[in-house]
């Protein structure tokens, strides 16, 4: 497995020497060879590809771009239970920003997203480096680290909800082992509930970060490392000064993926705390769902969805810009 830029429109190809007598293959402006004696065939070849792609293009225009535009418009109306298409300005956004619950959700996203990304990066990178030391049974260990990624966040949430259950789960286990003063009631503590989401989220996703970093480590050029070893550099120094900096593109991919998971995280919080106790572990995705579908506040729900989109853009666009820029300059 290798890590290629996740989002690249460029064709990764070796610079092929042009074959004499053949049109250069990677010149996309070269006319496709015409089927001998078949004008109909040529016509079909020109239009069939576009025809095949067109349903997808139309679907994307309608269901992605069109729907984003509709949601944007909905957020500028007075819609409540039913959509109302009368333009009403930015009132929903004003209401949204006046709601304390929205700011609780936004702050929770900050806490969860920040810690989730930090711990996943730290654990994932450390595990990848350790696994890279010619470990026996590496395959088995890797498989163990990675299996949570196959589970749905709902399953993860249900499992951790039971483990973190104060009185029956971890807490009782520690009591049975003699640590009678041990308390761990974060799940029902309004100040701490959001941190239980971090615990479960990191458990689920850190193995996957490890897999990405490990793939990146396997792609590091040996000759540079050998040269550094000849110069007498120690293993930690080599990792710190040479190997980790060369993982830059992997860091971008990982950040891209993790921030995306964090911003849209909905299922995990739903299963683990359902946003509670009260609204203390609310996140924007749950806010959006509840205001749109259980409270009949479509306009407000749309406004919060637009804010989520804005957050995604604010994080992803600079990251992707940096990633492609890095790629263009040969990293």
């Amino acid at each position: 497995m290798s890590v290629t830029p996740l989002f690249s429109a460029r064709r990764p190809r070796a610079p092929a020497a042009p074959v004499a007598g053949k049109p250069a293959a990677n010149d996309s402006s070269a006319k496709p060879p015409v089927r001998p004696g078949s004008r109909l065939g040529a016509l079909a070849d020109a239009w069939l590809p576009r025809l095949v792609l067109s349903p997808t293009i139309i679907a994307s225009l309608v269901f992605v771009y069109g729907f984003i535009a509709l949601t944007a418009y909905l957020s500028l109306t007075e819609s409540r239970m039913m959509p109302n298409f009368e333009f009403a300005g930015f009132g929903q956004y004003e209401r949204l920003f006046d709601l304390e619950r929205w700011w609780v959700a936004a702050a929770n996203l900050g806490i969860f997203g920040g810690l989730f990304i930090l711990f996943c990066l730290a654990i994932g990178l450390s595990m990848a480096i350790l696994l890279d030391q010619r470990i026996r049974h590496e395959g088995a260990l890797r498989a163990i680290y990675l299996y949570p990624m196959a589970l749905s966040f709902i399953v993860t949430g249900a499992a951790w909800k039971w483990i973190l259950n104060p009185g029956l789960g971890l807490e009782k286990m520690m009591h049975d082992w003699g640590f009678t003063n041990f308390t761990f009631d974060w799940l029902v503590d309004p100040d701490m509930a959001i941190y239980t989401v971090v615990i479960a989220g990191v458990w689920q996703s850190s193995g996957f970060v490890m897999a990405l970093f490990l793939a990146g480590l396997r792609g590091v050029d040996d000759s540079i490392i050998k040269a550094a070893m000849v110069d007498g550099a120690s293993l930690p120094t080599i990792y710190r000064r040479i190997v980790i900096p060369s993982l830059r593109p992997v860091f971008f991919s990982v950040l891209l993926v993790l921030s995306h998971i964090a911003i849209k995280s909905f299922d995990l919080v739903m299963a683990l705390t359902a946003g509670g106790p009260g609204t203390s572990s609310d996140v924007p995705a749950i806010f959006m769902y509840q205001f749109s579908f259980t409270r009949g506040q479509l306009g407000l729900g749309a406004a919060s969805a637009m804010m989520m989109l804005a957050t995604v853009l604010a994080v992803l666009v600079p990251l992707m810009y940096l990633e492609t820029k890095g790629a263009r300059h040969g990293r």
Partner: protein
Amino acid sequence: MAADLHLEGGRVTPGRIFIYTLLVLVALYYLAPLYVMLTTSVKTLDQIREGNLLDFPLSPTTAAWAKAWSTACTGVRCEGLAPYFWNSVQMVIPAVLISSLIGSLNGYVLAHWRFPGHNVVFTALMVGCFIPFQVVILPMARLLGMADLANTTTGLVLVHIIYGIAFTTLFFRNYYVTVPDELVNAARIDGAGFFTIYRRIIFPLSLPIFMVCFIWQFTQIWNDFLFGVVFGGADAQPVTVALNNLVNTSTGVTEYNVNMAAAIIAALPTLAIYLVAGKYFVRGLTAGAVKG
């Protein structure tokens, strides 16, 4: 990285003992929840109340599994997870097959039948991988309602196909650009048309990427919760939604053994695929990780 980088490799040194200890401890941390889920699901409620999390089941019983499968209450209905499990099966199979096939054709066009602006089209399609779905569910809910597809499995299949295509297209396109243009162009000179080339050259080469795509899409669609809870209604709810309802039912005594059995049932198909075809699963993760 280099094999000869680690001079002490093979020999037992304190450093290596430390590394192995750490790796094994971390492995135990990842495995612990699975162990807890499995053992809890075969314990009796009495043992759960008296014993602790890591205890081995004293008198294992499958009663909780039977209850989770056929009689546990998810919200107001008490038919267990079975009907919802089958809802998920009925949803996931057509959605995976259709979105993969469309993705394959799209990827073929984008990789080998480039036309002016194909890069713009590709980039525009890829945006579908990045948007938070919250930003499209309100219009989608209304559209499904107007099309009489709200609360149906067909509606869910449709939604998963639409928002899965960006990913499947990405997978196939990135795979097909590694098929040499010369191969395709030679076939064109020989008079092969668009679909002939696909059928004779591209499709036969596609088995590995179809595997990756199937597994990725299966995992994503099976594990989906947002679309299921918004568009599934009462009759087409997938198993993830039913599991959430079961776990969060607040009436009566919480039967943790039933909850854990239900969680394993909901996780079984994707876990099985991971065990059988983990290689392809990992490839899917690393290639299309964005959807996460």
